[in-house]
């Protein structure tokens, strides 16, 4: 699930060139849309995920059209855009607070009827698990198909590589940006829904996760797909397994757990800003690139 969210960040950073902190709220918007949808149409997870994805995409598109596009036009600095993304996040987050408050939807789990599909020793596979994992995988595969084999995906990759060049060779930058934002929102929204099915929904859920998600994206080098997915798994792994190991071996308290992804961010940015990407080249070529 980190993978889905981190892919969104990677897409935004590479195509739009904006470190978007409001990404957290697109996730939450998706989760809430899913929650409300699940009350209307219980027992239809696919529909719920589609609704969540649409809500996320809409949120991202509206934020782009009303805020980011205008700021990009007046050639604002990265910091301005970063601040604006914080502001968008604030507005969305606390609007959701008001919504949650007035409809009593705090810390609720998306209602999907629970069935145990397989029980073998301590391993229990429920229908929730059966939904969440394949959906994530399918989304990732669809995304990679889209990027590698469609015209819009080609344009996105061109913009990620070199924005000016993309403009010169006739990529309709504004249109591609709209599409990218919708795609990013779709990813965020549906991952929010999956997360809500898996644990619970609250207005702060996205905000709490966003830095871990950034950690995953940064670890992945923020340029490649495989890198990002691998980064996401590594972050999730270190949050759980490494923390358990530290606790067991060195007596590090579990209250330090949220610090793990942050430490990853700092270490990577300071010592290996290209993330894991360089590592693949290393494996391929047998030499380290400078």
């Amino acid at each position, binding site marked *: 699930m980190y993978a889905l969210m981190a892919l969104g960040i990677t897409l935004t950073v590479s195509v739009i060139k904006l*470190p978007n902190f409001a990404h957290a709220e697109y996730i939450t918007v998706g989760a809430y849309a899913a929650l409300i949808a699940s009350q209307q149409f219980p027992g239809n997870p696919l529909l719920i995920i589609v609704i969540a994805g649409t809500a996320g995409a809409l949120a991202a598109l509206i934020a782009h059209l009303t*805020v980011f596009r*205008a*700021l990009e036009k*007046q050639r*604002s600095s*990265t*910091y*301005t855009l*970063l*601040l*604006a993304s*914080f*502001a*968008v*996040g*604030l*507005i969305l*987050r*606390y*609007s959701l*607070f*008001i919504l949650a*408050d*007035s409809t009593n939807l705090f810390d609720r789990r998306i209602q999907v009827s629970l069935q145990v599909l397989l029980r073998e020793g301590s391993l229990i596979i429920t229908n929730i698990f059966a939904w969440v994992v394949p959906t994530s995988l399918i989304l990732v595969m669809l995304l990679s198909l889209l990027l590698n084999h469609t015209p819009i995906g080609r344009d996105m990759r061109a913009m990620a590589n070199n924005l000016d060049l993309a403009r010169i060779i006739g990529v309709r930058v504004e249109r591609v940006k709209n599409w990218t934002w919708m795609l990013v929102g779709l990813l965020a929204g549906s991952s929010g829904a999956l997360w809500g099915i898996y644990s619970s929904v609250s207005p702060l859920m996205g905000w709490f996760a966003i*830095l871990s998600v*950034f950690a995953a994206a*940064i670890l992945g080098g923020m340029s490649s797909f495989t890198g990002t997915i691998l980064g996401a798994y590594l972050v999730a792994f270190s949050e759980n397994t490494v923390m358990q190991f530290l606790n067991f071996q060195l007596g590090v*308290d579990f*209250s*330090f757990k*949220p*610090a793990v992804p*942050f*430490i990853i*961010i*700092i270490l990577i*940015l*300071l*010592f290996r*800003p290209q993330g894991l990407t360089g590592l693949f080249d290393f494996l391929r070529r047998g030499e380290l690139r400078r």
Partner: protein
Amino acid sequence: MNIDAGATLTALLTLFGIYGLIALSLNLEYGVAGIPNFGKALFVSIGAYTTGVTYTRLLPLLAGQEAVSPCGMTLSTALQLRTAIMRDLPGIGFVNFAVTIAIAMGVGAVVGCLMSYAALRLRQEWFLALVLLVGSEIVRIFVRGYEPIICASNGVSGIAQPFFFIRDARLNSIMFMLLILIMLLVVYVYVERLVRSPYGRLLRAVRENAEVAQAMGKNVAQIRAGVMAIGSAIAAAAGVLFALNVGFVSTNDYDVALTLDIWVMVVLGGLGNPRGALLGALLITLLDRFTGIAAIQLNRTGIALEFNYFRYILLGVILLLMLRFRPRGLLPERRHATLAYQALESQAAESTGDRG
């Protein structure tokens, strides 16, 4: 309607003073020197944690008594001990206050310096913002989990203001307010002078184009470290006052929300203009108090709506509107800030006088 106008005003000015100090420091760092300090909460928290440590360790020692562990079993003994000292021995209270400020500023300056050197290794400009943001969260999580500093997540209470010995609650809060406003004035004059001096010109040049500034013989890394040290020391001093004002040191007060508040103040008031920082701090503090009072009034009328949410939404809207329509703030940077112009103008006046 039984809001005590005097007390409200005192509380408002006290908060304004504290936020004003932090806003001045961020204005110097980002507005003038262009360093995006998204870790403001970290430097404020350094001051607060220092206060937690000195009040529980140093204060009893200064009073010639044994320090008692402030956490766990001996919590209430320790609390009584420091409250008694602050009440009965004002001199020691003041010494402790001064030492706390000095230590906080020192630690703040050192951490600020270190952070700026870390920034040298970063490849993209927004990485620094992220590193500072994340660094501030790491420290917060660490302090929350590590008992010896401020009793982990329990925090330390009973952090009395230096005027605690004055029995009249109203008078001592007014004294505290005055102390803060005097500090604000001193720092404002200091920052204003920096901005108008050749040093201010140097910082602006680094902001505009660091590479060219370096080619003009300026040691950019050192300059950034210097301004981060100054800004962080100011923020840490404000953190001490923050803790004293709340009377309690807890990690929950120093998260990203605080950093964002300060950013809104600086962007609203005006980048690169110390007066703008003060104006922004004043407006946001007013907004803060106003929404607070409005929330209480609303709850009285029976509407169960959390007004705090609107406060944050409003902050977001203000920030967006400013970035979009007035990116330089209400009071933009002044152009003729330096002495050089006066020199030229007076000379021009003289030469025309000679001719005429």
